[in-house]
């Protein structure tokens, strides 16, 4: 075949281009140039960033709708990507009578201790509120799987107020400094 070599080389270039796009794409996901990685999860659909609410006996998941947090505390594992310093967790929730809803991150691997923060309301959609809390990932305990244990706390449930909280969406925004040529040179210089 006359052009066999050219055809083979063209295909080889194609395979290499696909492979390079895949590897560079994954690298860019881990180190986004603007320094922000936004992910969304839903209670019934655990993802690589949100492992689902537990323990199961305190949570009822209505598929494709929301999770009802019937008791407290409720835990969930959240990914802590290594190159990010800050994580802002936003819950879209319907509060049916809890005066206080807090979000916390595990502060130490040696003890079951959480850094609790009240959910700050940043928006609403009819009765559903969007509440968020920011955490310094460096101050939280990241386990060997690269996850941080988080907690949703409704302290008044312990005092007999059993009004449930429904959660329909979890947004996590990870932040780091934007990647610029200067920051890359600076990072290399620090390692030399």
């Amino acid at each position: 075949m006359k052009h066999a070599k050219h055809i083979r080389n063209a295909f080889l270039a194609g395979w290499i281009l696909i492979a390079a796009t895949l590897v560079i794409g994954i690298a860019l996901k881990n180190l986004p140039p603007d320094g922000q990685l936004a992910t969304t999860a839903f209670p019934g659909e655990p993802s690589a960033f949100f492992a689902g609410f537990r323990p199961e006996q305190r949570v009822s998941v209505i598929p494709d709708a929301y999770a009802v947090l019937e008791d407290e505390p409720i835990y969930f594992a959240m990914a802590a990507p290594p190159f990010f310093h800050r994580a802002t967790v936003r819950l879209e929730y319907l509060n049916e009578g809890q005066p206080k809803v807090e979000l916390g991150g595990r502060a130490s691997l040696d003890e079951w201790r959480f850094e609790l923060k009240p959910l700050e309301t940043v928006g609403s959609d009819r009765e559903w509120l969007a509440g968020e809390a920011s955490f310094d990932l460096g101050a939280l305990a990241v386990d060997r799987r690269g996850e941080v244990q988080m907690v949703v706390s409704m302290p008044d449930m312990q005092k007999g107020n059993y009004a449930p909280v429904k959660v329909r969406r979890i947004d996590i925004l990870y932040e780091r400094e934007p990647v610029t040529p200067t920051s890359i040179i600076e990072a290399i210089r620090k390692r030399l």
Partner: protein
Amino acid sequence: MKRLLEKIFTDAWRVGFVTLLVLLILEVLQKGFVSRFFNVNWVILFLFAVSVIILSVTSRKQEERRSGYASLQMLGVVAALIVWIGLPDDLRVFWRAVASGGILVLALLSWPLINNR
């Protein structure tokens, strides 16, 4: 034409294998670096599919093809196992079985297809 196809897909297999190695090394160096954004099973499935194609277009002796088929079967079992383990935990057992079983059936069916050529 067959010879050209064999070369093209052998190149694809090599590039796929190197890609798989790079992804595995990145994952070992930093857990979650790859697995949070991409399912490595796709590369393994790609290698499996390319192996089937290479075996079907290659024109070697019967004994060599038999040993190639044995390798393909082994690869099929490994790929099925990896897919079973690698698929998300919340996926129903039925779909897990469909995916893994599909690969095994493909590995078994590939022999008559290759042999009849």
